[in-house]
């Protein structure tokens, strides 16, 4: 059962300065740095390269291993597909014509797509580092510190908490179905695709019904223990000023690079 959690869990336990850093510094630093990355203008390759350097450095500091972080950033690639039409719609110097369709790709379009790809890659790298080195509870607690509405934080928290419960429930259901998926000699086992699809639909449906039932039970149990809409934490560790210093340095680096590219 724990296998499910192992696949989905994003936090990777290591002993590193990045893991030890306070989430209340990491979360805003990551957010503001990503913002700086996304303001990069098209074709500003030097800016993108300069902004990628701290991400690569942080990868090594985190002891997660470059491959591990790189694999997680591949998550961003499907979203880049959305930018692909720019290749053909942006007006400019034609360098390639697609056979059959006659669509023309412009140099300006290619530059736009490449910039979007690089920007999202760096941004996702930052996000991947954040969630790999910070537990969900720490991130959510940091969000509350910055006055993110508690209903949002609570929703994310419970989604995360019960995601595993429901995932494991689904896994147990699949296992129980397998136990009854038998074959007899002389008969064609498995049923039709239509029937199998219907069974799969049933399973999703009953998982939904059960999750709904569960949410009612969970809420009742929470109210019984005095829940009033705010998750509470046992300890409130003090925020060290040094944490604010390095976070400010990282953010300042990102924005200074952007400023330099524009005004220098």
């Amino acid at each position, binding site marked *: 059962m724990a296998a499910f959690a192992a696949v989905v869990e994003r936090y990777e336990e290591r002993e590193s300065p990045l893991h030890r850093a306070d989430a209340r510094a990491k979360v805003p630093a990551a957010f503001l740095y990503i913002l700086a990355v996304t303001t990069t203008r098209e074709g500003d390759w030097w800016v993108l390269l300069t902004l990628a350097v701290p991400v690569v450095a942080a990868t090594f500091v985190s002891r997660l291993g470059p491959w591990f972080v790189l694999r997680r950033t591949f998550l961003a690639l499907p979203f880049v597909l959305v930018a692909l039409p720019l290749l053909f719609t942006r007006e400019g110097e034609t360098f390639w014509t697609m056979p059959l369709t006659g669509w023309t790709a412009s140099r300006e379009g290619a530059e736009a797509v490449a910039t979007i790809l690089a920007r999202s890659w760096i941004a996702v790298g930052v996000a991947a580092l954040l969630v790999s080195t910070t537990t969900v509870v720490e991130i959510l607690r940091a969000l509350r510190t910055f006055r993110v509405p508690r209903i949002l934080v609570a929703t994310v928290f419970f989604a995360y908490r019960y995601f595993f419960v429901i995932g494991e429930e689904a896994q147990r259901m699949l296992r129980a179905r397998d136990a009854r998926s038998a*074959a007899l000699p002389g008969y064609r086992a498995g049923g039709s695709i239509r029937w199998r699809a219907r069974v799969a639909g049933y399973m999703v449906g009953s998982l939904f019904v059960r999750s709904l039932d569960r949410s009612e039970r969970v809420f009742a149990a929470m109210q019984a223990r005095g829940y009033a809409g705010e998750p509470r934490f046992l300890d409130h560790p003090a925020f060290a000023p040094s944490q604010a210093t390095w976070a400010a340095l990282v953010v300042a680096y990102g924005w200074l690079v952007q400023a330099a590219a524009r005004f220098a």
Partner: protein
Amino acid sequence: MIAREDPVERRDAPDGSALEVDALSFAYPDGTPSLRGLSLQVAPGEKVALIGPNGAGKSTLLLNLNGILRAQAGTVRVLGETLGEATVRSIRSKVGLLFSNPDDQLFSPSVMDDVAYGPLHMGLPRDEVLRRSEEALAAVGMQEYADRPPHRLSLGQKKRVAIATVLSMGTPILALDEPSANLDPLSRRELITLLDRLPLTILVATHDLAMVADLLPRSVLLDQGQVVADGPTRDILNDAALLGAHGLEPLSAHGHPHA
């Protein structure tokens, strides 16, 4: 109408054991060993209890019997057929598994759909599927609930429907994980009567020693993935020192009559 030969009966003529487990070793993916060279033989028609503390390997053993889990070493033979990649589907038509939580087992919008799943998957003709499903529901006394959604049933009813979903497959061997857990006394009594009447080879993993005394003439005591004791239930349940050494309590200790 031509009388149809029952496909299960046709193959059900073993001379030797119903179940032969030989030196089975299993460790979970995280490395926790669960079964350590466990061996066990069960004759056709025997009703056997698997008892032992939490984590002894009872459930793991049951999951190994029809290939839901695959052991790293050792063999499982079911009615003469060795469990392997090629035989797993066929073995699942011989060993029916009842999971401890009926909610894992029931996933259809109606009781009837769920009971029909097993025979439908085996590719049996429609009238045969209906006949078996109705018989299975009748055997557990749940015919009137055929059209109900399973999640609206009580736990005792869910358990009975879950048993019907396995009975409809016509497996000669039944492996049950904690069938009496959380049942009220009446539902529990009905369950015992039902299992007692079934002319099948039955393995029950349980902590309910009173049920063991009532229903299962042979007991196998497991601890740390090995068979610690195997013999007549009467002998094992009366051995207070043995039970105490493996996390169990003799029946008299909580006020039940002796076996």
